[in-house]
């Protein structure tokens, strides 16, 4: 903040904030799906998950 209370640096517009929030949520969901997928396959395969056929 400067002396007049204005924020320094780049200030995002509402549209930029909204699109950034949307992209962040999408990335979080994608990571969540990846975690659930790896967990589910580990449960399904059991010890065989360590077997790596070519």
């Amino acid at each position: 903040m400067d002396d007049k209370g204005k924020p320094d640096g780049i200030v995002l517009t509402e549209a930029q904030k909204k699109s950034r929030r949307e992209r962040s949520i999408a990335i979080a969901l994608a990571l969540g799906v990846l975690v659930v997928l790896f967990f589910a396959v580990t449960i399904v395969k059991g010890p065989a998950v360590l077997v790596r056929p070519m």
Partner: protein
Amino acid sequence: MSVVDHNAIELSPRISEADVADYVALLKPRVMSLVIFTAMVGLMIAPDHVHPVLAFTSILCIAVGAGASGALNMWYESDIDAKMSRTANRPIPRGRVTRPEALAFGMTLAFFSVMTLGILVNWFAGALLAFTIFFYVVIYTMALKRWTAQNIVIGGAAGALPPVVAWVAATGSLSTEPLLLFLIIFFWTPPHFWALALFRSDDYARAGVPMLPVVAGPDATRLQILLYTGVLVAVAFAPWPLGYFDAVYGLTSLVLGGGMLALAINVYRRREGSQALRATRKLFAFSILYLFALFATLLLEVVAHAVAPSIW
């Protein structure tokens, strides 16, 4: 005097306003839906039982891999896309997503789709998916598309591979059946895309893409469409007499193949005016239905075998 004038350049970083829909558009969702469908058929006709979680994982990875190919294709072809009315609304020409953003997005998806398929399913399938992405992006997009009129003939191999990847994901090995599916899509691609190119030839000419109608002319393209349709109909019918697929598939293939051939003959004969345009559009639309119905029949055969094995 200072060599660098610090006041001359004011750095203003570009803040992206791209939303999720722009990134979804980079994945080419319509192409992706066909990839998902053909891959599902490849997975379902495989003889091995696949756990639903592994089946879902395989299809998801193949779909994401196809999306990555689409994003990397749009990254490389943004100059062409901007010149063509069909593609001018894509995220990069519209200025919604930059080329480096599309490249990063595509490479990230390609990496995760291949690694996830390799780690969770099998490495043969993962390697084949990597090869498919490589073939579409490097061989088709970068090398063939701007160089030869045979671009979509050779490049069609990339679009034909998803059912093969799915079969390998299910079985861990290759066999004749997925190669038959590969050949069907491979020979389906030229008549499908040349029909599109016939009524979009101005677009392709403006962008400098050497599609067959631009390079060899519409009449030569019509002949090639007819010849490739003949081969396609024969290739699509062959699995029945060879004993790989059932009679329902064989008869469906015969009926649909007859329709495809009739429309290709129509395209060959009607060369002038609105009749020619209508004939080409009809073939293009029917070719999508043809491939969908053919693969749907295979899917129905699998379901029927599972539900009532004694009847089949």
